[in-house]
C-alpha cells in the first residue's frame, strides 16, 4: 500500500462526502428536518445531468448547473407540500413523508431513465495528474475546490450576514423568531432549496466516479448520515471535518482491511460515537 496515495484518496473521498452532506447538515440545523430522500435526490440530480448531456447534447459544464436548477425548483415544490407539517414541527410524520418521496423518485427515475446502469461522464475524469507514484484526476481537484469554496461561503453567510442571522434565529426558536417578524416559512423553503441544490452539485461532481443507477440513492445516503451525525447537528465546520475524517477512514480501511465492509465499518464508528455522545461530536 502506498500511504501517500491512500491519503490523497481519503482527501478526494472526504471532499465528496462533505459536499453531499452539507445540504442536509444545514437543513437539520435550521429546520430539524430529516430528509430520507436525500440519497434519491442525489440519484435524481445525477440522472438529470446525464439526461441533459445525452438527450439535449449540452456539455458537462452546462448539464451540472441545469441539474442544480431543476433540483432547486423541486425543492420549492417539495417543501411547499411539507410546509404545514414543518411549521407544526411534526418531525415523525415528516421523516416518513420524505421516505415516501424517496421511494417515488426511485420508481420515477427507473421508469423515466430506465433500469440499466448509465455512464455519466465528466471530461475531467480522465485528465490525470501524476507525481511519481501518486495520481489523481482534475475532477478530484475540481471537487475539492468546490467543496472548500462552498463551505467557506456558507460559513460566511451563516455567521456574518443578516440572512445567516435569520436562519440561525429560526433554528434557535421558530416561534420567537416569528414574533420578531421573521417569516419562518420562507426560511424553511430557502433552506430546503439549498439542500436540494447542494446535493445536486455534489452529484454533478461526485457521481461521474461510478456508473449511475436508480438504486444508488440507498447506498449513498448512509455515508451522509455518518457525516451529519458525527459532525454534529447543523455544524458546518463539523461536517467538513467529519467528511474528511470519514474519507481518510474509508480509504485506509478499504486498503488495509476490506473494501466490501467499509460502510459497515463506518457505521460501527458512528455507533461507538453515538453510544458515548448521543447527539454527535460537535454539539453546540
Amino acid at each position, binding site marked *: 500500500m502506498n500511504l501517500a496515495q491512500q491519503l490523497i484518496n481519503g482527501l478526494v473521498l472526504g471532499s465528496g462526502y462533505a459536499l453531499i452532506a452539507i445540504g442536509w447538515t444545514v437543513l437539520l440545523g435550521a429546520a430539524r428536518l430529516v430528509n430520507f430522500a436525500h440519497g434519491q435526490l442525489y440519484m435524481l440530480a445525477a440522472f438529470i445531468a446525464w439526461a441533459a448531456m445525452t438527450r439535449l447534447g449540452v456539455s458537462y459544464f452546462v448539464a451540472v448547473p441545469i441539474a442544480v436548477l431543476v433540483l432547486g425548483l423541486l425543492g420549492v415544490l417539495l417543501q411547499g407540500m411539507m410546509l404545514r*407539517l414543518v411549521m407544526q414541527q411534526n418531525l415523525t410524520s415528516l421523516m416518513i413523508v420524505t421516505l*415516501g418521496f424517496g*421511494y417515488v423518485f426511485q420508481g420515477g427515475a427507473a421508469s423515466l431513465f430506465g433500469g440499466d446502469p448509465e455512464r455519466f461522464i465528466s471530461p475531467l475524469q480522465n485528465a490525470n495528474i501524476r507525481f511519481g507514484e501518486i495520481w489523481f484526476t482534475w475532477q478530484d481537484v475540481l471537487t475539492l475546490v468546490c467543496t472548500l469554496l462552498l463551505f467557506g461561503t456558507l460559513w460566511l453567510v451563516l455567521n456574518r450576514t443578516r440572512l445567516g442571522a435569520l436562519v440561525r434565529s429560526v433554528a434557535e426558536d421558530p416561534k420567537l423568531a416569528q414574533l420578531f417578524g421573521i417569516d419562518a416559512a420562507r426560511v424553511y423553503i430557502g433552506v430546503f432549496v439549498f439542500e436540494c441544490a447542494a446535493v445536486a452539485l455534489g452529484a454533478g461532481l461526485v457521481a461521474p466516479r461510478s456508473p449511475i443507477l436508480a438504486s444508488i440513492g440507498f447506498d449513498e445516503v448512509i455515508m451522509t448520515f455518518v457525516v451529519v*451525525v458525527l459532525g454534529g447537528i447543523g455544524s458546518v465546520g463539523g461536517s467538513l471535518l467529519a467528511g474528511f475524517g470519514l474519507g481518510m477512514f474509508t480509504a485506509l480501511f478499504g486498503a488495509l482491511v476490506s473494501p466490501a465492509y467499509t*460502510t459497515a465499518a463506518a457505521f460501527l464508528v458512528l455507533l461507538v460515537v453515538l453510544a458515548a455522545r448521543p447527539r454527535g461530536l460537535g454539539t453546540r
Partner: protein
Amino acid sequence: MKHLATPAALILAALAYFVPSVAGGAPVVYAACTTIAILAVMAYGADLILSYLGEVSLGHTIFWAAGGYAASMLAVNADWNGWQTAAAAIVASLVLAAVLGLVTLRTREFVFSLVTYAAAVVAMEVAFNWSFLGGSDGIVGVPPLELALFGHGITGSGNADLWPIAWALLMLTLLFIQRFRHSRLGTSALMVQMNPDLAQALGVDARAVRFLVFVTSAPISALAGWLYAYQRAYVGPDMFESYFLVLMLTAIVVVGRRLLLGPLIGTALIIAQQTFFSIGGDGDKIILGTVLAAILLLWPRGLIGLWDVLRRPRASARPPTAPAAPAARR
C-alpha cells in the same frame, strides 16, 4: 358500543380465513391472501414502535430478514422442522433487537431513526458479502414447511397449504397486539410517548419501557420473515429492500395509527393493488410512495380521519383538536 369494537375486529379478522375459498380459490387469490397475512404480521412488528412508542424504526427489515435467514439456513442445512426454525427465528431476532436496542437506548427521534436505518443498510451489506449467509445468492431450496401438532403433521409448500398457517400466525399476532395494548408495558409506552414527564413522575423508567417494547416487537416481524422463507423457498439480501420498509410504514399509517386492524387493512389494500391492479414494478413504487406521503400530508390521522369528517360534516370546520397528532409534538 366501544367495548364491543375489539371483539368485533377480532371476529372480522377470523372470518378472513374463508376469503380465499369464497373468492373462488384460484391460486392467485391464495397467493395474495397468504402474502397479505405475512406482510401484515411484518408490519405489526413496526407498528408496535410507531403507534405505541411514537418513534420510527427503520430497522425492522433486520428482524424480518433474521427470521427468514434463520428459517432457511436451519431448514436447508440442519433439516430442522417448522417449530424448531420458528424458535430459532425468535431467538435470533431477540438477540439482534437487544443489541440494537442497547445501542439506541439513549437516542430518540431522528437519531433513533437514522441509526436503525443505517443498521439495516449495514445488515444488508453483511448479508450480501458474507458467504455464511449465502452472500448475494442467498439461500435457495428451502424445503416445505413441516409443523406437527398433536400428532397431526401439516406440510405446506404451496400457497393454499400455507394459507391456514399464515392466517393462524396473523390471528396470534392480533391477539398478542390486543394483549399488549392493555398490558402494563403497552400503557406505560403510551404514557412515555404522550407525557414523558408524567410517566417519570409516576415512576416509569422510560428507557426500560422503550427497550422492552423494541425487543418485544422484533419476534413479530421475525416470524413473518420465517413464513416468508417457506412461501418463497428462497431467502436473499432482497429482504432488506426498502420495499418492505416503505410497505410496513404505509400499511401502518394508511388507515390510522393505533387501530388494531389498521396495519392488516393497509397491507391488504397495498397487496391487492399490486396483485390485481399493478401498473408495473416502477409504477407500483410510485403509487406506494405517493400514498405514504399523501396520507401524512393530507390526512395525518389516516383514512379513518376521513370517516370522522364524513360522519360529522360540520365538525371539520373546527380547527383540529389537540389529540390529532399527539405523538409528534414534543
